[in-house]
Every structure is written in structure tokens, then in C-alpha cells.
């Protein structure tokens, strides 16, 4: 940020005297002041602070609900599908009936995979929130 005036100086107006550059200074200072203000908005329990916390909560909740939806739309549908189409429960793969395969290997692999997906995304959401508070 401290280099910014020099960059403008060379890029925009090569022959401009340095004194004019200080005009940009209030803008940098204003931007810096905001970093303090998001954290203090949250601490002050202002409407704005609540919006920031809500945005974190909503992104995490959306992620959680996406994982639950993935679970419900796969494993969760197994009983109702087998109830409606009992013949599928009698299909045999490699000598093992399909329901036995789904409710052992497939289910456990899916649960662990969803867990890995969730942890990565949740940490990314939190990193984004931290950046929001740190960089502005």
C-alpha cells in the first residue's frame, strides 16, 4: 500500500511533481480504517456486523445441507426404492445381493467421501471469512 503512490506516479503521469500524489492518501487510510471496523461492527452487535456473521453462518449451513441432501438422495432413498421396486433388491452382483453391497462398502465409502468434501469446503469458507476481516 505504501508503494501505491509511486506506482501511480510512474504509470499515470510521469512528469507530475510528487506533491500531487498525496491526494490518494486519504483513500488508502479510509480503506485501512475499514479493517478495524468490520471486527468492531461485529463486536458492537450492529446490524452490519450481524450481516457479516450471518454470511459465514449461511455459507456453512448451505454446505451442511448440501452434504445432507447428497446423503438423503442416495442412501436415504434406498428403502423407499426397494419398497417400490422389490425386484431390485434381488439383483446379484459378483454373487452378492445389491442391498448388501450398498449397505456395507458403498455406504461407508460414501460417508467418508462426503466427510472429506465437507471439511475442505468448511475450512475454505472460514478462510474467506478470516480474509474478509483481515485484509480490508
Amino acid at each position, binding site marked *: 500500500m505504501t508503494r501505491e503512490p509511486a506506482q501511480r506516479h510512474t504509470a499515470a503521469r510521469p512528469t507530475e511533481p510528487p506533491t500531487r500524489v498525496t491526494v490518494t492518501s486519504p483513500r488508502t487510510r479510509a480503506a485501512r480504517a475499514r479493517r478495524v471496523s468490520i471486527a468492531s461492527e461485529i463486536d458492537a452487535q450492529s446490524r452490519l456486523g*450481524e450481516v457479516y*456473521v450471518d454470511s459465514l453462518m449461511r455459507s456453512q449451513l448451505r454446505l451442511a445441507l448440501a452434504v445432507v441432501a447428497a446423503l438423503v438422495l442416495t442412501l436415504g432413498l434406498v*428403502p423407499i426404492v426397494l419398497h417400490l421396486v422389490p425386484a431390485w433388491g434381488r439383483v446379484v452382483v459378483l454373487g452378492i445381493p445389491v*442391498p448388501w453391497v450398498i449397505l456395507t462398502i458403498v455406504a461407508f465409502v460414501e460417508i*467418508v467421501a462426503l466427510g472429506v468434501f465437507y*471439511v475442505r469446503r*468448511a475450512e475454505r469458507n472460514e478462510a474467506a471469512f478470516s480474509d474478509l*476481516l483481515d485484509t480490508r
Partner: protein
Amino acid sequence: MSTAASVVAVILVALTSLGVGAFGLRISRTMSDFYVASRVVGPVLNASAISGEYLSAASFLGVAGLILARGVDMLWLPVGWTAGYLLLLVFVAAPLRRSGAYTLPDFAQLRVESSKARHVASLLVVGIGMLYLIPQFQGAGLTLRTLTGAPLWVGQVVVAIIVSLNVLPGGMRSVTLVQAFHYWLKLAALLTPIFFLLGAFVTGGAPAAVGRLDAVDWAEPLTGDYALYLTYSLVLATFLGTMGLPHVVVRFYTNPDGRAARRTTLVVLALLGAFYLLPVAYGILGRVLASDLVSSGRADSVVLELPGRLFSGVLADLLTALIAAGAFAAFLSTSMGLVVSVAGVLSQDVLRRRTELGHGVSAFRLATLIAVGLALGLTFVAARVPVAHAVELAFAVAASTFCPMLVLGIWWRRLTAVGVIAGLVVGGSLSMTAVLTTMMGIDADGLLGAILTQPAAITVPAAFATMIGASIATRHRQPPHVAQTMVRLHAPEHLTLNRGPFNPEAQLQARPDRLTARR
């Protein structure tokens, strides 16, 4: 069957557990406090302790017995008990750790700032804890009877004594290492015999099969009456119940922060998935080799009896002894976790309010003895409920009470104290009614009977609806610090933000089970 090897194995497990407990206490005493200790142990040891505590008698013995007796529909138990941790991961793990709450009553107090809500939660912790402890003690009695012919009360009293001896010195600090050790012991105790059993079976060393795998009512799903309702109700109870179990929540406290809580849970998912394939294998093998156990009503002991069906002499004795050791580890580690959490609540919310015990440690120790004694007494009274089903009912109660409290408390700002109390009372009394009817052996016919056996599909939505409805009706009575509480639950720890007045560190002195007095 020679019983000497099994008795020696059980005694060895008991002595090793006490030894590991003393060792763990010594390690953590040299640390400045439990927080530091937990930072050092890392996610794998922590996840081992969580899994070790979670895999109870129902998982170790009950699942295989139920699969042997009732077939494919029972596969939902291991799947649901693992998926329960996935839902715990996505809804609860990190925020719960960030809350700083040590027990579920702590969380109630933090979130809705009401000591009445705290007391209702305490009562439920004791109720669910007892419901879960009874089958552990029962399982110990049954196992020792299967192995040695000793009366039921012998195994029950032995487990009660060893649990007390492990919990009394240092509560949580002395059981963590024991529970981690028990996970690996249980895995080895099921994994080693299965190699021998499958080997003998595949190479044709097995006796002629006595049971068939293609019986329709066993191999095909959803064959009984109300099977669809029962399956979905079981799925709901197991998926949502895990996060509401008091001993599970306490264990998450040993994670250093929210991020670590998530990563630990991920390891737990892998550890549970690996373990739960084994009881399924035992159930299927049991169907082939020991299906007569179903008609004689001893399906629960199939895991213990299989080695004796295929082998004889020293090999059979050693394999049986190994399984007996694993089963005892299962009773011990789950019972320890339950006793620690129930005693923590009893000492904090009952004893220290009512009496002038003064010193926190003596209150916790007295509470430990009360919890163990109460569980032992109830076990003698409720002798007839099968092990795995009593545990299923505990999951249903947890799913109908603490699950809505945690999920709504973490994700919904408008939850109020009245909402929590109403939801806990409605969900708790409905599900407990079903539990008590089942425990007293009252059989209802038709759909009512199905609902009483698996109440979750009715009671969980009822609890959520009550909690939301009562909160909206009392929306003018928001907890004063709700905004700061939400920051505490969701913001990563490294950010410097105001997280409200709730200070778990200040309560350390009041938590002897978490930070024992140094001698």
C-alpha cells in the same frame, strides 16, 4: 469350551485398562493442564479415543447377532451409527467445540442463558446415560455367563468396579488413553479371528453349513410388517441420535479447537467404517455356521461362539479369549465415557447445589459412585431388554431431545429458552414413554406397536416443531448475548472478536473431572 483362557483374557484387559489409565493420568499431570495435553495427543489418538468410547457392546456383539437373526434390514444399524458422525460433523462438531461447553447442560446455558433449560438438560443427560449404561452392564453379565457359566450379576459387578476404579482418580484425564487403546484392541479382537474363520471356511475346513444365505426374509430387505416405517425410523434415530449422546459430546472437548474437531471427526468416520465391516462379516458367517443360536435366543453371543464352531482345542480357546477381551474392552470404554459425563452433570448440577461438599473433586467422586450404583441397580431391575435394542432406544431419545437443541441452537438465532425447554420436555417425554413401554414388555399390535418399537420418526419431528413453535411464540424473550454467542460458535478461534461472557476457563476449578486437583 475351556474357560481358563477367556477368564485370563478378561482379567488382562481389566488390569491393562487400569494400568493405561494410571499412565495417562501421570502424563497429563505433568502437562500444565488438559488443554495442553489435548494439543499434544493429536487427531488420530483423539479419534481413536472417540471411536473406542463409541463402539459399545451393541456394536461389538449386538450388530452381528441382529444381522444373524434378522438379516439385511439390520445393516442400517452400523451404517446409521457411522452416518450419525457425518451429521455430527456437518452440523455440530466445530461450533460445539468453539462453544467451550463441556457438557450438554453447559451448551444449553451458554446458548439460551437459562438455568431452567440447564436443569432440564441435566435430567435428560442422566436419563439417556442410564438408558445406555444398562445394556453395557447387561452385556458384560451375558458375556461372562457365556464364557464361564457364572451368574449374570458377576460380570455386571466386575464391570462396575473396574469402571469406577478407572474414573475415580482423574475422570476424563484418566480415561482418554484407555479408550484410545480400547479401539485398537476391539479392532484386533474382531479382525484376527475373522482371518482364521474365513480361511477355514474357504479351504473347506468348516463343518457342513447349517443355515442358508438365500432365505427370502433374511437376505431381502423390507419383508416384515411396517418394515418401511421401522427402517426409516431407525435411520432417523441413528443418523440424528449420535450428536445428542452425552458421552460423545464430552469427548469432543479434548480437541484443541473447532478445526481440529472437524479433522478428528473425519478420522472417526474412517475408523468406524473400517470397524463396522467386521460385525457384518460375523453376522453372515453366523448365519451359515450357527443359525441355531436364533431359535435358542442366544443370537447376541454369535461373535463369541463362532470360533468354537469351526475350531477346537487351543486355537478355539485363544480366539474366543481374544474376542472376550475385545467385548470387555467395549463394555469398559463406553461405560467409562457414560459415567464420566453423567457424574460430571450430577456433581455440577445436583450435588454441589444441594450439599456443602465444598471440594469439587470429592463431589465428582461421590457422583461417580452414585452413577455406577444407580446403573447397576437399574440393570438388576430391567433384565429382559435385548442389548442392542436398548441402545437403539437411547439413540431415539437423544435424537428427539438434544439433536434439535444443538442443531437449532447453532444455526437458528431465534431459539429461546422456552423453546428449548418445551422441545426437550415434549421430545423427551414422548420418546421415554415409548422406551418405558418397551422395557416393561408391553406389546402393542399393528402400527402402534411399530411406533413404540422405533419412535424416532414421530418424536423427532415433534421435538423440532415444538422447539421452533415455542421459540417463535416467545420471540420477544431472546437471550441477551445471542449475537456474541453466534460469533463464538462460528468464527474461527484465531480472530480476535468479542465472544460473550461465557468463560469455560473460569469454570475449570468447578470441573474436577476435567482438571483434577494435583496431589
